């Protein structure tokens, strides 16, 4: 029976009032084509088999579900980690880029463009382009190019062209504008692999579906390992693709609390944050209607986060709907709390998490949670933090 909470109207690409297709007319034909090709692929057993094969062979799926014994001891409840950090390329992003690359091949489009913030989506895109022999151009804000040098070089090693974007705030928002501008010009030969559950329909539902492997695996692994479902599932939210992929496995399980953690940056009162769902208002950016950080005049406000992957003033439209319906609770933690959690996870579990993921841990580790001994907590460990090591060293003044 379809859930009223999870009411997606695929015909118009809306989640409640959110989503839609607010794009220049030039792109409509390409979105129609993509929707049609995706609809056919969804029900095509051969496509599913090819995708599953690649997720196993290239990505290394299924990803592990790991116990986190010392973290569990710290918070006073059992914590399990869904290890997307162990995927090839070190994050969940590749689940989506493999799927979209297969669709690009079906459409006969051999040039791929992508936007990237932290560089993880750019690396995941460059990786699948190398694997399939596709041309790859990645747009990246000039500020992110400076703070994620390692990932820039990784993309270049993989054969991608990285284009630094100097306009606007010089971060993910403007990289996305520039990728869309490229696409308006090149749409006949080019597929745009959007890296999160944002953008015009069909991207939010398509990217969610490609990421839903996280939640599907995690649900089965939890049942097998613990014999029950988690009491709470926690994931960080920038655009929200790892969270949407994880949550999609549990939306129908009413007893499972779902928590999305946004970046409060220097604090919600500081005006320097990326907590779109906590502090934004609905509006249109990058093709969809969703919560948005904006000023009185409808100009998009610059976002801020210590984590380049969360530094985005928008959020996926399905998250906006899940916020309004109350099915998912959205919280925000500061840069400082995320850095503390980053260090704690390193020392307690021997895992260097991505700064994005550290936000989910920060919420979990906050003593205010008051976890009970029989709580069963599942964290989406969306990526590994090797890319963040130099930045963290600088922020902590070299102190480990």
């Amino acid at each position, binding site marked *: 029976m379809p859930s009223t909470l999870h009411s997606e109207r695929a015909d118009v690409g809306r989640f409640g009032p959110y989503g839609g297709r607010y794009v220049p007319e030039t792109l409509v*034909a390409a979105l129609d084509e993509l929707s049609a090709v995706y609809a056919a692929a969804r029900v095509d057993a051969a496509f599913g088999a090819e995708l599953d094969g690649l997720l196993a062979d290239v990505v290394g799926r299924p990803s592990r579900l790991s116990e986190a014994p010392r973290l569990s001891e710290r918070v006073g409840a059992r914590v399990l980690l869904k290890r997307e950090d162990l995927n090839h390329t070190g994050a969940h992003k590749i689940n989506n880029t493999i799927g979209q690359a297969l669709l690009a091949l079906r459409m006969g489009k051999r040039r791929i463009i992508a936007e990237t913030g932290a560089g993880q989506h750019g690396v995941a895109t460059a990786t699948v382009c190398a694997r399939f022999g596709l041309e790859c151009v990645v747009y990246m804000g000039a500020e992110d190019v400076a703070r994620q040098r390692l990932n820039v070089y990784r993309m270049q090693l993989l054969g991608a062209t990285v284009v630094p974007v100097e*306009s*606007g705030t010089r971060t993910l928002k403007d990289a996305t*504008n520039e990728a869309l501008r490229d696409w308006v010009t090149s749409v006949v030969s080019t597929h745009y692999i959007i890296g999160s559950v944002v953008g015009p329909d069909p991207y939010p539902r398509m990217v969610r579906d490609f990421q839903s492997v996280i939640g599907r695996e995690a649900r089965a692994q939890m049942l097998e390992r613990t014999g029950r479902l988690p009491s709470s599932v926690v994931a960080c939210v920038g655009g929200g693709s790892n969270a949407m992929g994880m949550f999609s496995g549990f939306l129908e399980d009413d007893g499972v609390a779902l928590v999305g953690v946004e970046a409060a940056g220097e604090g919600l009162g500081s005006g320097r944050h990326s907590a779109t769902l906590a502090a934004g208002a609905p509006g*249109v950016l990058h093709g969809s209607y969703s919560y948005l950080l904006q000023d009185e005049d*409808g*100009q*998009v406000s610059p976002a801020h986060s210590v984590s380049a992957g969360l530094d985005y003033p928008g959020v996926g439209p399905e998250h906006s709907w899940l916020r309004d319906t109350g099915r998912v609770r959205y919280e925000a933690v500061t840069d400082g709390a995320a850095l503390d959690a980053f260090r704690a996870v390193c020392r307690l579990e021997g895992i260097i998490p991505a700064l994005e993921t550290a936000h989910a841990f920060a919420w979990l580790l906050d003593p205010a949670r008051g976890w009970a001994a029989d709580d069963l907590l599942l964290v989406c460990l969306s990526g590994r933090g090797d890319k963040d090591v130099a930045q963290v060293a600088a922020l902590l003044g070299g102190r480990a």
Partner: protein
Amino acid sequence: MPSRLARTWSALRAERRAALVPYLTAGHPDRASSLAALRAADEIADIIEVGVPFSDPLADGPTIQRSTFDALGGGMTLAGTLALIREAGLRKPVVVFSYVNPILRYGVTRFLADAAALGVAGLLLTDLPAGADPALERMVAESPLELIRLVAPTTRDERLRDTVRGAEGFIYLVGRLGLTGASRDLATGLAESVARVRAATALPVAVGFGISTPAQAADVAALADGVVVGSALVERLGREGVAAAAAVLRELRLAMDERTAAPVTRVVSGAAR
């Protein structure tokens, strides 16, 4: 009573002229120059597109992007754009050209009422393709403002028919694949694109994107009912000021009027009607 745009088009048709439709970003390069540029355009052109600056102009090339960032830097807003239009006191029909978000934030009903009170003739929303937001589209359709639709080279025939069905005022045909911005060569196949739109609707067709020189404007004027010039004008206004921008418009006007007066063009567009 026919709308302001309809009256303009029939007057142009009677004079056998194509419309010169300049685009200017409100508040660029500064408020005073923007006001003067709008008034100069009012003297020379036929329909005036006034762009509302937006922080994320994803359909625009570098020139319009820069102009919108300059305008925002100078404090321009949607409310400020309406105030500018009021103060300019333009006699020619005005089409407000905006991304969706500033209008949503201002309030759609409030915007439509305020713009209508100023006599604004039309509204073009860059990121609202036909059918994308039926509620919003209905509100514009029921207002005195005419909803101007964009048609792109990639718009398929079936979609073209749906798009022109709800269109008012005129059709804005994107003359080439890509962003706003000057280019050296006009898209090949423009004549076919214009003919395709004419086959679907009786509305006048204005062509924009990439038109920068008098010769290009004249070529387009021979095919279409209107010629939109944006980036080339905005560029000159930003670099050399209002007098230089007015000179650009006069050169375009001259080249277009010479060409559209030639009898052969009437045969072309008359045959397609």
